């Protein structure tokens, strides 16, 4: 038997393991890698994390509920391209202007969220109504979503978003650009929803035992459908942020981010079996991946080392999950 206080301490460490690992990794890099220990570098890590962190929100919620969404990367690119085509001044952009100018911020945001929510709703229809496998449905959307991006843009890019939108990527608050704050606020908001509201509680219940949740009177189908729409909308938000950051969109925008999001979700402690996970943990997972990438860049190593290390990290994360479980069993 373990004393309650000691048990609480161990639980605290286990629950926030990824944050401890992040702290250790940052400390090691700060000592070992020249020029790593700077506010600018840390700010850069947070800025880099913006897009994968936003993508990971919806993915985490769906995995926690026992589903998955492979389409988020393409949805993100699609939303970015639609914003690019509508508001960018050159390339395939048609350069719409609004009066007053600042209206472009809410207008483009709503459009990006709507594009994402629409694809999410389509995924939800196939998975929830037609009972198709989520893996296949969202894989299809991953493929056609990217196809649509290329079709809409003709393979060309949209450039030069107006300054009324660009300021979000340039202006900083507490040394992070505003777009990074958008992803942090979105993560915290959904962390709150997951931990403190009935909606989040019911998602966990569905992920744990959908049959029991249904019997308890929870509207499982409705909740699942809403979560797919949220995942789409969050991918749309990531697309909006990415368009602002890159001042437009290219046909191959964000390729590979799906796998980074999956890696972050697993490293962040979300169980692929469903029912377990926290969004702040996932954010730490994203930061961890970005810190490693930054360290590799600073050391001047070739970029493919990043992939090697990140792949290894995913394996370690799953291994840690197993170890955590057996430690918890011993605590009881």
């Amino acid at each position, binding site marked *: 038997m373990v004393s309650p206080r000691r048990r609480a301490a161990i639980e605290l460490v286990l629950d926030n393991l990824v944050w401890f690992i992040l702290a250790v990794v940052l400390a090691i890099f700060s000592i070992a890698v020249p020029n790593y220990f700077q506010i600018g570098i840390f700010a850069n890590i947070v800025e880099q994390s913006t897009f994968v962190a936003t993508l990971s929100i919806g993915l985490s919620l769906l995995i926690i509920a026992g589903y998955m969404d492979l389409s988020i990367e393409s949805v993100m690119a699609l939303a970015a391209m639609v914003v690019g085509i509508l508001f960018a001044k050159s390339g395939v952009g048609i350069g719409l202007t609004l009066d007053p100018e600042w209206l472009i911020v809410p207008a483009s945001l709503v459009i990006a969220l709507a594009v994402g929510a629409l694809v999410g709703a389509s995924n939800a229809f196939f998975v929830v109504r037609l009972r198709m496998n989520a893996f296949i449905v969202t894989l299809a959307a991953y493929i056609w979503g990217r196809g649509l991006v290329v079709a809409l843009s003709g393979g060309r890019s949209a450039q030069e978003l107006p300054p009324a939108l660009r300021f979000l990527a340039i202006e900083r608050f507490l040394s992070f650009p505003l777009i990074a704050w958008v992803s942090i606020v979105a993560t915290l908001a959904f962390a709150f929803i997951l931990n*403190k*509201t*009935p909606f989040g*509680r*019911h998602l*966990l*219940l569905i*992920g*744990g*035992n959908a*049959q*029991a*949740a*249904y*019997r*308890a*009177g*929870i*509207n499982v189908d409705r909740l699942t459908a809403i979560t797919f729409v949220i995942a789409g909308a969050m991918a749309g938000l990531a697309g909006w942020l990415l368009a602002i950051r890159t001042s437009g969109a290219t046909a191959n925008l964000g390729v590979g981010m799906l796998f980074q999001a999956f890696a972050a979700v697993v490293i962040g402690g979300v169980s692929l079996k*469903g*029912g*377990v996970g926290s969004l702040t943990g996932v954010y730490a997972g994203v930061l961890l991946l970005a810190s490693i990438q930054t360290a590799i860049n600073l050391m001047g190593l070739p970029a493919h080392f990043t992939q090697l290390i990140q792949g290894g990290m995913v394996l370690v994360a799953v291994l840690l999950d197993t170890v955590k479980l057996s430690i*918890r*069993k011993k605590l*009881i």
Partner: protein
Amino acid sequence: MSTEPLLVLDGITKNFGAIEALKGVSFSMRGGEVVALLGDNGAGKSTLVKIISGGLERSGGRMVYDGREISFSSPAEAKAAGIETVYQDLSLCTNVDVVANFFMGREIVKRFLGIPVLQERAMEAVTAKAIADAGTRIPSLRTNVEHLSGGQRQAIELNRFVHWGGKLVLLDEPFAALGVEQTRRGLDMIKKVAAQGIGVIIITHIMTQAFQVADRMVVIRQGQVAGDVRTAETSADEVVRMITGEAAKAVPGTREDARTTGVA
């Protein structure tokens, strides 16, 4: 016990494709009455319970509950009408703690700016009281259910139905994983619940349990009611013969028969 029937089943049928699981089941019960639903494996007991609890839709027949003709298309509707169900395979989410399971779908919330926020402390207090009242011991209410034993899990499920009550409780083999002492407590719980005027339908395979707790026995055989008797007016032998179908062949009502063929 009230005089108005709480639940009336009238010719309930259920087909799964070409298979007729229920071929017209009729019986009625009052609030405060404990009815044991007996029958061999595959007789259709669980199907009947699922129809009453909204888990399955019936193919035909009428169901009158609390004075109204009803038809539930989901467990949520049955629950809203006051029908609680304890299933054979437990309906717990092992990935969350005892409190979350106890309140599943009925969480206590407080609204801040219109956003419902879970009230964990209040829920924990209610759970602790309900579990203590029932005399169940669980190390920590914040433990995930996956770390609890089979008996503890079943106790949570039983405490849940006692707490939420409603008007009608359906129990499908509720004591399958319980020890002797816990089963005794479970049976007491059922009596306590019935004494509050709640109707109880319990499916069980164990004859002694049925005789201990039930006011009436309804035997289902091949999708039909093969017997509907008061516990005080029957014997285990008679019920067994109804379950196996021998009663139809024997001359009904002769106690001689029971004595000569009875092993006990």
